[in-house]
């Protein structure tokens, strides 16, 4: 990841360079409206959600699968079970309760997922690379992902864009995006809306309203279309109205870096 851009400027402040990962995190944070209830995994999603909370969404509700509801961490936790999450939460419930009463019941507006592989219908693999019984790489597995994917009103996927991860065919389907096509979520009884956006270090992809196929809608500043096509393992659909993402503001970058510096 050597790509570096110049951020947008604020009057009276020196602009700053930023990394593609920072652009990805800022784009994810922007997608979280104030007051939304987010089911947050550790890593980039947690950073994005806490950035949103520190900037435009002070009333964002963070729910971690460890059972902490309404956590307001002052720094970024390393694990989803860090004491900081429990100490600052409105309520801490058991793991059965978080999955049955809160996630499965459809109380979560936005779920975040990452993955090792994604396909053009936003199905995800976090289980194995290679054959299941003789894997090349054994990944951590499902965790909360299948039910986050099934039950949240919308799912935001955050992944670095590369040919190894944006694949024509998953080695294993851990979580369902749109399955085999537009009617599949309904057929499978999945109550949530499915992936609403895939945010990468190169741009944004949205599912086509009709086919559900992921379609490139935004390039991040400085990224050219060929880069994204090259980094995608299937013939990439591109929006006729391809736009450029607004670069991170100094305000956003400042908060993001303060959060990162306070990481425990």
């Amino acid at each position, binding site marked *: 990841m050597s790509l570096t851009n110049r951020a947008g400027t604020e009057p009276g402040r020196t602009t700053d360079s930023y990394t593609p990962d920072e652009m990805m995190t800022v784009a994810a944070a922007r997608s979280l409206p104030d007051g939304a209830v987010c089911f947050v995994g550790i890593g980039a999603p947690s950073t994005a959600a806490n950035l949103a909370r520190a900037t435009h969404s002070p009333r964002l509700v963070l729910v971690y699968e*460890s059972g*902490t509801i309404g956590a307001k961490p002052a720094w970024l*936790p390393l*694990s989803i079970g860090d004491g900081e999450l*429990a100490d600052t939460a409105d309520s801490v419930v058991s793991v059965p309760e978080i999955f049955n009463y809160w996630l499965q019941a459809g109380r979560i507006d936005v779920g975040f997922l990452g993955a090792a592989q994604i396909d053009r219908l936003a199905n995800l693999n976090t289980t194995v690379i290679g054959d299941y019984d003789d894997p090349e790489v054994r990944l*951590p*597995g499902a965790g909360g992902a299948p*039910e986050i994917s099934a039950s949240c009103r919308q799912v935001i996927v955050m992944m670095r864009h590369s040919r190894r991860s944006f694949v024509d065919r998953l080695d294993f389907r851990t979580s369902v995006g749109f*399955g085999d096509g537009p009617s599949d979520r309904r057929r499978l009884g999945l109550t949530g809306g499915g992936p609403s956006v895939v945010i990468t270090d190169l741009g944004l992809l949205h599912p086509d309203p009709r086919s559900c196929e992921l379609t490139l809608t935004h390039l991040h500043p400085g990224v050219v279309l060929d880069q994204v096509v090259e980094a995608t393992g299937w013939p990439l659909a591109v929006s006729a109205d391809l736009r450029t993402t607004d670069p991170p503001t100094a305000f956003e970058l400042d908060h993001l870096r303060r959060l990162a510096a306070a990481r425990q």
Partner: protein
Amino acid sequence: MMARLTSLPEAVAELVGDGDCVALEGFTHLIPFAAGHEIIRQRRRDLSLVRLTPDLVYDQMIGMGCARKLIFSWGGNPGVGSLHRFRDAVERGWPASLELEEHSHAGLTNRYVAGASGLPFGVLRGYAGTGLMEQRSSVARVRCPFTGEELAAVPALRPDVAVIHAQQADRDGNVQIWGITGVQKEAVLAATRSLVTVEEVVDDLALRPGGIVLPSWVVTAVAEVPGGAQPSYAAGYSQRDNGFYQGWDAISRDRERFQAWMQTNVVERASHAAGRL
């Protein structure tokens, strides 16, 4: 039957047998490291290990050859990366091959809930459309008799032994846990036997905000092991040693370095010092 207050080595010797199905539960918080280390020292073999989030202690037990099978839903080093000993066992069969049964968190959780509830199965919205339906995940389908909807059914889980770490027990063996309590109550209630290591045995088990109590009569044995959850943590007693979790990545990457570390820090360490890493 009240819980017995005993020592960790005695409790492991009595409660954990070769070939047992053992759940050392803990969801990031209160992971029973000291008990896992004692199981390693006592050289238990052919265990079926169960846990939603097998982390470093299971990586250690797998690397030391205790496990035959792993029933799990997420096997990584949280916020850091892979569990290298787990991967080595699955990818290359070292030190032995490891049979896997894998679930989603919700699915494995509901296996415990069914076990704790005395039901033969649990029902959830889950698994539909995923590869987990096929991969030895012991998942079936059940139809709602009212709406006709199909849902996932998971069989009740009833481990032979559940092992957890808690903050406190009183002298009667009543146990209190607070903070993130995970699925530990369900694991203990689902299991045939249970061992609870505690930070402290206290005279008066005053209920804390967020505290849950396991009455003595559903616990088999309690052992006082201060620091028994380190390098994870016990809210009110210690902080999570995030540096250790990050450092484990390098220690565990290499078989020899792993073995040397385990020899020095676990195998040759006296039981009473367990957990004080």
